[in-house]
């Protein structure tokens, strides 16, 4: 019998391979550096022949002669360099295993080939609709006792619109069937806000953050709120999920001139990182795959994935899909300063940017022997469809050439003339700049006219001349200003050296401008590439394909989680072999196949779930609501909620006086509303699932915050009069008090009663 110890490697469903324990050890401890791509010290342990051959320092090992083998010696620290370089020394037991294995002749690969092939994993096979069954037959074990109508209505309201029903709404719904109520709430615009926040979690919504003092964007981007509004609107309009994926990943390719669609690309713009393009690319790859497909491809950044069939090269081929894209801000009507307001969107900037495999995931060690083209991991679904480059229309690649931009720039130039009144030099410059701008626009229009405008040369010459004249006048004006600054800077007792230097710099620049020969006229705005690679469109279609085994399952799992509080696959972002098994795969697959069959119709999926007996049944325990729902509900029951939808993000410090829904406040790693944070607010870096902690800080927020105090007082005033106790219970908790409660409440002041009801378990939970 062999002296060798064997290790059964259990992955996913069952045992499929058996490999020598020593080999498994070397794999985990050494392979991350000594692999085919990395080859530290020229040594590659991924194959038997390369391992035998060894590296720069000589042969790896001699089969049958462990103690003389270099590999063994460096591990035993009898030869240098002592290995592993990172991590603890091998224990005596581990060394003995390695020695025994080498002495046995170093058998490689699987000794017993058994088990299914590597890619066989439930989640990588297409879901099949269970032959028979509905949610209720597949989900039979739970309580089937229906919840009372008032509990159910409250549950539906909190679930679908994110706030409790008002007494008036309760009265109205009492006359409707459950299905009618579901339909009404799915058609309520508040549905998009409530579920928009869920998808903002999954899609990592973050407003810009960075160096706020200097207004310097380092991560995410300005004006991300347009993407948030797109999410809310898309959900409300019932946009199919596959279409949403397509617009988010490739809105700029499928609708290059449609600002409404372009907003969706905030999904990718959000990954922007000013100082770290590599990290930006990683986020784009990793979170696209985590969010839409529940696979942790990110593990394959440094080495082949340890659990799932994703090779390191495949990771970088996926990255190649994103490699060309960048973020820009296009002007929007009404604002010429893009810092103040603009459409933040993505576009392909570097069409030929190569993607290389990064050895050990290190940006400093690209393997330049091969440029990796875009594709998707083979084991995760169908092959990537054909990539077709997209020719962009003029308005897309030259956005400042659009009519409204010209109109507004001209208006701005005219306003500058008025502003300069009283300053002769500035006025002369401004007066010259307007015709120069008009001439530049005329030249640009001629340049891009179809068919070509024969007057282009003439118009270009005119634009050049007018711009030169205006430039000279402006330089004179600046020169005078710089001189004045200089005089002022030198005037005081102690000249401010910084101001003097600044003035000197301006003076030099102005003087230089006066003598600069004209080279050509300046275009009206920036021009971008006229083509887009089409890579992201292909990826989006691949993700949103009905042949993709993961996309629908991942989405329905997220939706189920948010209706029931537990997911069907508990590891919502990992459907791979290292994730958990589905607790009810037939049910998951029923929902997934129905979702696709309905044309990825989310509202239909919600409805299917909400009409089930499972959803309508009594629940044994309460579940805490998200901070947004708690805050919105307090404002709503007090009658103080401002229902205005959409628009720029609001400073969370104004959370008390601006009574908008919580999703409209800035949310980034830098800036979050404290009230929401206390209730496990979404981590803006990633939040595939919310935590539901129960901590005293929540009690403090409910008991002591200005919000709950003020709103309790407002509501008390509103409800004053006979029957206050009943109405208070109805308004805050959606039900009448029991006799015991009524008795308790009778002794309290109205404000105290309402304040206490805000602190009631039933107010901050759903049941």
């Amino acid at each position, binding site marked *: 019998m062999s002296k060798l110890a064997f290790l059964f490697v259990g992955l996913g469903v069952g045992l499929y391979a058996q490999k020598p324990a020593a080999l498994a050890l070397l794999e985990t401890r050494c392979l991350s550096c000594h692999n085919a791509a990395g080859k530290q010290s020229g040594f590659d342990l991924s194959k038997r022949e390369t391992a035998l051959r060894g590296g720069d320092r000589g042969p790896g090992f001699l089969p049958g002669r462990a103690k003389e083998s270099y590999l063994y010696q460096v591990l035993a620290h009898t030869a240098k360099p002592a290995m592993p370089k990172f991590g603890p020394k091998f224990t005596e037991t581990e060394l003995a295993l390695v020695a025994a294995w080498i002495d046995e002749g170093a058998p490689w690969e699987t000794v017993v080939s058994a088990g299914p092939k590597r890619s066989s994993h439930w989640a990588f096979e297409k879901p099949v609709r269970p032959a028979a069954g509905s949610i209720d037959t597949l989900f039979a*074990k739970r309580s089937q006792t229906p919840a009372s109508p008032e509990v159910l209505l409250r549950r539906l309201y909190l679930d679908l619109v994110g706030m409790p029903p008002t007494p008036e709404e309760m009265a109205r719904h009492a006359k409707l069937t459950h299905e009618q109520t579901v339909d009404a709430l799915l058609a309520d615009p508040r549905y998009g806000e409530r579920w928009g926040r869920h998808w903002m979690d999954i899609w990592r919504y973050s407003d810009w953050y960075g160096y706020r*003092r200097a207004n310097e964007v380092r991560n995410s981007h300005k004006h991300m709120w347009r993407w948030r509004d797109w999410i809310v609107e898309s959900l409300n309009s019932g946009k199919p999920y596959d279409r949403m994926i397509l617009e988010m990943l490739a809105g700029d390719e499928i609708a290059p001139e449609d600002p409404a669609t372009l907003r969706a690309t905030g999904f990718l713009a959000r990954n922007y990182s000013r100082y770290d393009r590599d990290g930006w690319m990683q986020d784009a790859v990793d979170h696209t795959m*985590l969010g839409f497909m529940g696979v*942790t491809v990110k593990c394959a950044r440094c080495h082949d994935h340890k659990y799932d069939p994703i090779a390191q090269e495949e990771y970088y081929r996926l990255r190649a899909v994103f490699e060309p894209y960048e973020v820009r801000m296009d002007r929007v009507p009404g604002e010429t300063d893009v810092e103040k307001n603009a459409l933040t969107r993505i576009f392909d900037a570097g069409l030929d940017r190569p993607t290389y495999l990064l050895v050990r995931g290190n940006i400093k060690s690209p393997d330049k022997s091969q440029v990796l083209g875009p594709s998707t991991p083979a084991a995760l679904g169908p092959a990537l469809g054909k990539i077709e480059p997209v020719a962009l229309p003029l308005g897309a690649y030259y956005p400042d050439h659009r009519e409204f931009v010209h109109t507004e720039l001209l208006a701005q130039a005219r306003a500058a003339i008025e502003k300069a009144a009283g300053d002769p030099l500035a006025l002369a410059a401004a007066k010259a700049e307007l015709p120069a701008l008009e001439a530049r626009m005329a030249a640009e229009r001629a340049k891009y006219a179809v068919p070509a405008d024969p007057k282009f040369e003439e118009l270009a010459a005119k634009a050049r001349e007018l711009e030169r004249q205006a430039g000279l006048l402006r330089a004179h004006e600046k020169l005078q200003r710089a001189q004045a600054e200089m005089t002022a800077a030198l005037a005081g007792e102690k000249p401010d050296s910084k101001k003097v230097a600044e003035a000197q710099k301006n003076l030099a620049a102005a003087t230089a401008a006066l003598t600069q020969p004209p080279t050509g006229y300046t275009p009206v705005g920036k021009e971008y590439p006229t083509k887009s690679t089409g890579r992201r469109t292909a990826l989006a279609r691949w993700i949103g394909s009905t042949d993709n085994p993961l996309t629908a399952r991942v989405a329905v799992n997220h939706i189920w989680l948010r209706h029931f509080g537990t997911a069907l696959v508990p590891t919502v972002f990992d459907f791979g072999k290292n994730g958990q098994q589905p607790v009810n795969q037939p049910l998951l697959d029923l929902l997934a196949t129905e979702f696709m069959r309905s044309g990825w119709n989310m509202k239909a999926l919600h409805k299917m779930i909400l009409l089930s007996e499972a959803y309508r049944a009594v629940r044994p325990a309460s579940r805490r609501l998200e901070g947004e729902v708690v805050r919105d509900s307090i404002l709503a029951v007090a009658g103080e909620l401002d229902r205005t939808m959409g628009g720029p993000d609001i400073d969370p410090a104004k959370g008390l006086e601006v009574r908008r829904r919580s999703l409209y406040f800035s949310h980034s790693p*830098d800036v979050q509303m404290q009230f929401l944070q206390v209730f496990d607010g979404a*981590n803006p870096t990633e939040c595939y699932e919310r935590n539901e902690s129960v901590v005293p800080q929540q009690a403090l927020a409910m008991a002591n915050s200005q919000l709950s105090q003020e709103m309790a007082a407002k509501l008390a005033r509103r409800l004053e009069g006979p029957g206050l106790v009943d109405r208070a219970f109805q308004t805050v908790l959606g039900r009448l008090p029991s006799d015991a409660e009524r008795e308790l409440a009778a002794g309290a002041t109205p404000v105290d009663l309402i304040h206490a009801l805000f602190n009631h378990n039933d107010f901050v939970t759903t049941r």
Partner: protein
Amino acid sequence: MSLHAKPTRNRREFLTDAFCGFGSLAFGALLQAEAKNPLAAKKPPLPAKAKSVIFLFMAGGPSQMETFDPKPLLNKLEGQPLPASFRPAKRQFINGTPKLLGTRRTFKQHGKSGLWVSDLLPHTATCADDLAVIRSCTADAFIHSSAQYQLFTGRILPGFPSMGAWSVYGLGSESESLPGYVVMPDPYGTIEAGQPVYSNAFLPAVYQPNIFRGGAKPVLNLEMPEGVTLAQRRNTLNFIREIDEATMTPGDDEFSARLSTYDLAFKMQTEAPAVFDMRNEPAHINTLYGIGNPVTDDFGRRCLMARRLVEKGVRFVTVVSGGPAISQWDAHDDIEENHLRMAARTDQPIAALLKDLKQRGLLDSTLVVWGGEFGRTPEAQGGKGRDHNNTGFTMWMAGGGVKGGVVEGSTDEVGLYAVERPHHLRNIHTTILHQLGLDQDALNYLHQGRRERLTEIQGEVIRGIV
């Protein structure tokens, strides 16, 4: 059976997830004993020297040459370029061929140990025999935000938990009435990397930092609302309890957990304000910390608060000196002006903190760590300033089982590169965890399929100082 028999993520399930992630983690086993309150104090898995940590963060990067690392040769070579025999420097802002800049500070040996400290820090010098000065620190990044991320979270990128969050995740909090992890930022403003450096990132939210607001009411919602007395609040809470209990379903863990948080909240409300109220501190303590002197008042108050917090069992306190731009130790323009200004604010309070902890017997169980995200270049920037230097700089530790009056490692003769026993920041992290009785491997959290830990790559305990 279906896992949906109980269709809610109740408290216990949450706690299980919080500690064990998905599946079971090595660390989960350690926590089985205490699964009720995620913040309850836990026995450290390894022998611990320190119960608490106070991190005195000198934002912007204080200079080693002006503080703890005397370089006589640097003064001799002043005005000359770095000799070719030295390894050239990496720099962020210096252009062209810079000239070496000597220090205007004078160094003397202090205490029985004869530890070298410059006259920039006369007060800290009086604690020389308590300091373990690590002169050979290194870090990967030489721009502020990345370097600050690495110092706090072990990674140069955002998105990872800070050491304070890791510590509380590992050990819970000794105090029921105070947060386990407190950050006291500089009132001058947010540091360059922003508040995410302090965060719990993917660790459950209960490990989030409690960022103190300035003034007498540092924790939001902890103070009684205007006009409400403690007795009234007790009544309100009783009423809340009664009205809650009227409809409580037996076995609803979430519900009972929420009720108990109201008791805890009340405990916090009654006890914590007393900790925050420093008026009862005797005059000599105020004087010791420099409270009342406009220069030292703010940092002195925050250091005194740090002592009061660890006294009550708070696990990790970060006190920040420095905000954005020129309000930090970022002496690009003029090392003298900047460091004299920054040291004047912090030196006396820091020495006071060490002495105060010691006289109360708390220094043995409190690890005090001092340092910035990097040090500064021996070469001059713009004549009088110094640029960032991440290749060799000084940090110190005191208390918490660390040896006093020792020097660990060294830099080259001008203070540019760490040469003897270099210690990457991950060794600092490993040592902090080690003193707390935590193991860098066992203290992990399964995040997106990977067991993340503070040190990422194996760090070493700095044996020379423990």
